[in-house]
């Protein structure tokens, strides 16, 4: 499986890596127990600083998506860390929806876009 990074994305690179890995987990491509490539490998392949990838991995670890095992590197933890309250997820969702509304999209268009994205995640296999 591959992590794709858009070059015109305005998010910082470490955030793109974090979000990309979360997306792979959500899509079921990275399952519990799967090993992530080492920080050195990802940084070397992309040609970026080691710290950029290390920060992304640390963020995933802090959020409970990844555990670091001695000798095995970073390993995917349970898909639902269980520590995130639904109420915590609503503010970022509201922010994104606000951007859609400000961009002039109708309610129907927003619903279609959300359904498309959800469907894309589910197609990758395993999102429920």
């Amino acid at each position: 499986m591959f992590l794709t990074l858009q070059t015109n994305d305005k998010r910082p690179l470490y955030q793109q890596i974090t979000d990309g890995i979360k997306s792979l987990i959500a899509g079921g491509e990275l399952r519990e127990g799967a090993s992530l490539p080492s920080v050195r490998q990802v940084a070397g392949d992309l040609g970026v600083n080691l710290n950029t990838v290390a920060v992304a991995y640390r963020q995933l670890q802090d959020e409970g998506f990844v555990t670091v095992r001695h000798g095995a590197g970073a390993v995917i933890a349970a898909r639902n860390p269980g520590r995130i309250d639904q109420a915590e997820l609503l503010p970022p969702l509201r922010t994104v929806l606000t951007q859609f509304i400000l961009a002039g999209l109708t309610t129907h268009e927003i619903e279609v876009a959300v359904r498309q994205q959800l469907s894309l995640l589910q197609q990758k296999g395993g999102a429920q």
Partner: protein
Amino acid sequence: MTAPTEFGIALFSTIMIVSGFAFNLVKFEWNRPLCNGQGFYLGIEVPAGFYDGPGKSWLKSYRATLIALHLVLAVTLAVLMALKLWNWTPAWAGGSALLYVITLVTLHAWTRHKLGTNLPVRAVAIAMESRRLSDYIYWPLEALSASIIALSWGLLLHHDGMHIDWLPPLQMTWMALVLPAKILLARSGSPLPAERTEEHFKYQDAMRRNGISYLNIWSWGCLVLLFGVALGRNCSPAVLPWLGWLVGGVFLAVFAYMMIVIFSGIRLAATLGRDLRPTGSFATPFRRAALPKMRRSYLIWFAVWIVPILASSVYAVIR
């Protein structure tokens, strides 16, 4: 029965190297700029109609450089043969490899500089699978080769006061030490274009494995020679001719096998990469994509490895 002479082995090896160079030139290098189709020149994206305009002179210059390079190699070899300087052939082989690599790397770098970097790809991808050294390097075999080196040196050091020329075994040991290069190749990777990522990934992995196989075979060829030399110091004179033929035969078989693997690897690369965006033809916001053997770390290793070989080969002749 007499043992094979150094002259015989040098002659046979030279014939094989020259045949390899000639085959490589005709079969692969001559049309390399065109191997990715009309939209590319030497792996660099070019505008439509390039080959009707400036492309003609680019192609002509590329081929002229190749001819000049091979002429230099052929003339130096011819001079060595005419002067019967057979002991210079190892230095010629090493020097040829160095000159060949330097010329082609410079040619690629110059072409990229002049034809410019392609537009960056809009999305890049990287494989989220761990690439472990053990996926590429078979450690038991590495341990075996280290044992052979240790055993050979054990035999060489146990020589009962007999005079030994230490330079050839030192050279062979150094030549066999290619593990750092294999590690560099196994660890090397480039960002992949987001289109046809799987195919690009397979191509990149095939290139990595090809490079490691060449080094493996090369290393075993050197080990055969080293072990043969070490055994020769410790066996009776009656066995020496047989040992010489055996070691020479095995070495040449390994050498021939390496040539076959190299050419089948080149063919595989051409097949896998035919319709893909050539590696090195695109830039990412982070860095350019590059073939494993064109990476700076690998080239530095190559220079550090080959210079002592060349220097010692020259020293062996002039001392």
